[in-house]
């Protein structure tokens, strides 16, 4: 076995009922490199990582760590031999303190008791190394998702033995935090650590990685040095066809303003300051802003998941002071939440049931959609949205992230909504699905559906939207349309004023 490798895996194979998730995949990680693992949804990235870290057993193949063959059977075993992973969704305990999260399961002892001084001191040091200065005695739930992610990384770095796996670590970070994370990654790399970096952001791959391994449909496509693989080449290898940056044609924004929904003075203490907005029929309205700017919170008020404490919503001439999801659905509003795993899918239920859920809720308890009819509906959307599954009766939790997102889209499309609110529908999914979803948004709008679209990627918002409302510090600070709708303009709107870019998280106005 050659030296210089931390991790080598050969012939990894894994099947699930109905799906061959990995077929004979090789992977290797050198000392002191950042190695990107790329592929579309369902390509097998997460499966490979889970096989490496013992989340489930591989069916075949061998893994060597620092030259010795290993075969971790549980994530704990993997941690004990020094393979630690930070997953896409933060896997920590909300109700424990930051320090407890970093040290849980391996507290330092003094005279047989937990040495709390050391726990707090070391936690602070570790986070300081990530340039994060927070009170480690506060419960984790006190902090934003971005901070929680950093805490997870701090824990992983401390446990690891030369190898760190980051599965989509940047999807919930803002630009500044990503920069910070990259600094930390480079530092760790200089110390000789090998980092596996899974992401969907192409720019980030070129900014920070040394090598790229591409997977497609569970098979290895190849391993490349980042500098030798142009971006277009990478994309075409990932999706297996020639790919041109899609420029979805936009309908001319000269349609007569035919208002579907109007909000005036809509607000909730600690969430969004009184906001005025209108959504016209057949338009795509963007809500842009940083994490915590109030974009998601506004959407939640429109759908009634959170109760507004001021303001009025007018839908089709009817006024509502208090909205709730049931009422919203009856009025033709649908909502795909940003946290797909917790607020979107019901993992234990089948694709059919997940798709039928909102339509059934709209129709009420007694107007039951027969199972046969549910199957027809599910089958229709599986074909229309190209959901990758052997059938309608699969558990949704067995699907990849992008396909789960499509199931939730199908759930709402089945209700034939007049207004669809999409909160980060493209987060954490591959380029192919992303452009499919963008195209779908434009098609739906062309058919007369109103869309409220939220995304962290300004580029995609500018591509999709007819009009963008910009938020900062829980307030509406501007609106752009037509020729003004440019990334730079929006960035300037977000950045100008007292708060710099990336510093506005959690500050009350």
């Amino acid at each position, binding site marked *: 076995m050659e030296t210089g490798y931390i991790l080598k895996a050969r012939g990894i194979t894994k*099947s699930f009922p109905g799906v061959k998730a990995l077929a004979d995949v090789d992977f290797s990680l050198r000392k002191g490199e950042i190695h990107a693992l790329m592929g579309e949804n369902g390509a097998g990235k997460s499966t490979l990582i889970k096989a490496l870290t013992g989340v489930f057993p591989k069916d075949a193949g061998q893994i060597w760590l620092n030259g010795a063959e290993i075969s971790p059977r549980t994530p704990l075993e993997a941690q004990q031999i020094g393979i630690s992973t930070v997953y896409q969704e933060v896997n920590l305990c909300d109700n424990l303190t930051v320090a407890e999260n970093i040290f849980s399961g391996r507290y330092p002892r003094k005279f047989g008791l937990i040495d709390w001084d050391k726990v707090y001191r070391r936690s602070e040091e570790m986070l300081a190394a990530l340039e994060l200065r927070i009170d480690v005695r506060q419960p984790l739930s006190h902090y934003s998702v971005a901070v929680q992610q950093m805490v997870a990384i701090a824990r992983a770095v401390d446990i690891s033995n030369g190898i760190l796996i980051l599965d989509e670590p940047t999807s919930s970070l803002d630009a500044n935090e990503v920069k910070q994370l990259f600094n930390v990654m480079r530092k760790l790399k200089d110390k000789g650590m090998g980092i596996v970096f899974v992401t969907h952001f192409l720019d980030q791959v070129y900014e920070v990685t040394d090598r790229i391994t591409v997977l497609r449909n569970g098979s290895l496509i190849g391993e490349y040095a980042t500098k030798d693989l142009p971006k277009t080449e990478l994309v075409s290898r990932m999706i297996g066809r020639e790919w041109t940056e899609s420029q979805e044609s936009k309908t001319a924004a000269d349609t007569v303003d035919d208002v579907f929904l109007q909000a005036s003075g809509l607000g909730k203490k600690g969430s969004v300051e009184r906001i005025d907005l209108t959504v016209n029929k057949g338009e795509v309205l963007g809500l842009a802003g940083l994490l915590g700017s109030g974009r998601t919170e506004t959407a939640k008020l429109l759908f009634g998941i959170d109760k507004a404490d001021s303001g009025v919503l007018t839908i089709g001439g009817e006024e509502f002071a208090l909205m709730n999801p049931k009422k919203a659905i009856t009025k033709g509003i649908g909502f795909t939440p940003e946290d797909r795993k917790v607020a979107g899918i019901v993992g*234990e239920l089948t694709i059919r049931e997940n798709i039928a859920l909102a339509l*059934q809720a709209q129709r009420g308890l007694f107007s039951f959609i027969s199972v046969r009819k549910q199957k027809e509906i599910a089958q229709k959307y599986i074909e229309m949205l190209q959901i990758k599954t052997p059938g309608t009766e699969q558990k949704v939790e067995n699907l990849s992230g992008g396909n789960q997102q499509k199931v939730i889209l199908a759930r709402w499309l089945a209700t034939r909504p007049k207004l669809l609110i999409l909160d980060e529908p493209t987060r954490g999914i591959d380029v192919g699905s992303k452009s499919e979803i963008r195209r779908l948004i434009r098609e739906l709008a062309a058919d007369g559906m109103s869309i409220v679209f939220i995304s962290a990627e300004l580029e995609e918002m500018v591509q999709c939207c007819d009009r963008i409302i910009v938020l900062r510090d829980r307030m509406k600070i501007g609106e752009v349309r037509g020729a003004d709708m440019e990334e730079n303009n929006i960035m300037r709107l977000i950045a100008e004023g007292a708060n710099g870019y990336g510093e506005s998280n959690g500050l009350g106005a």
Partner: protein
Amino acid sequence: MANLTASVRNIGRNPIIWPLLALALLMIFNLIAIPGFFSIEFHDGRLFGSVVDILKNASPLAIIALGMTLVIALEGIDISVGSVLAIAGAMGIFMLDGYPTWIAILAALGIGVLCGLWNGMLISILGIQPMVATLILLTIGRGIAQLITGGRIIDTTSASYTFLGKGYFLGLPIQAFLILIVFALLYVLKTRTAFGLFVESVGGSKTASRYAGIRPRSIMMISYAIVGACASVAGIIVSANLGSADANNAGLWIELDAILAVVIGGTSMRGGRFYLGGTVIGALFIQSLTTTIYSLGVPAESILLVKAIVVILVCLIQSEAFRKLFVPVGKKAIIE
């Protein structure tokens, strides 16, 4: 051959197979070890025998367990069912003194539903944990029943009321039909309305269900009210069978057997999928086990021990992790 193994595997995935298997094994054991266990006599237009007794005696447990299935599917629990049973029985007998039978029955059902709504309110609106919320009624319930009976054991001679506990229909004890009716009602509610889907969805993820427009609160209120109604049906059966209401002892500890019946039936305490048929099988198993142990003449002091050992075995059969130690289940289902 491949088809056969595939269908065997499919059967293995259906959770109702395991309680059925346990019940079948117990019956085979009875067939061999207890002569005359399956003998049924017919006189005066009625059937007599151990199997008939099991159907009759299992009815309060089976009916309560059916209701319990719903709240367990919602990640909840109702440990007040024994007390509600006592309250409903007391109410029924109490109302017979001066009111017609149908009013007594409606009053018993009504107070049970009321108890269920109380539990549902504490849990879904005030957000109290189900175990704690229903502990309240478990504790004070028997006190309420005593207030109704005035601290005595009250009795009745109403033939139309006691028919619900002693009567026979088509040669079978009336209880067998009551189990069937409650099962059928809930089964229709599960498969012919959206209630089943909503319960399984809320049990699977309350947050996601709320985002999909379901109201978890209403679903929970309805479910706890149904458990309350089931407990009162059981209370009517028990008090009708005895012709009296005993506030202190009626339905004592039945909540534990009911939870056990649900779990044996394949419904997980973590909520989500639920199996009404499995629950009935689970309740019949528990009652059969009791009958078997008595028929075998196990010494009184060992009865609970024997019961515990059998229950452990059944729970092991139910455990997928335990089964995997012996049979690799569904490992090779690959579609290339």
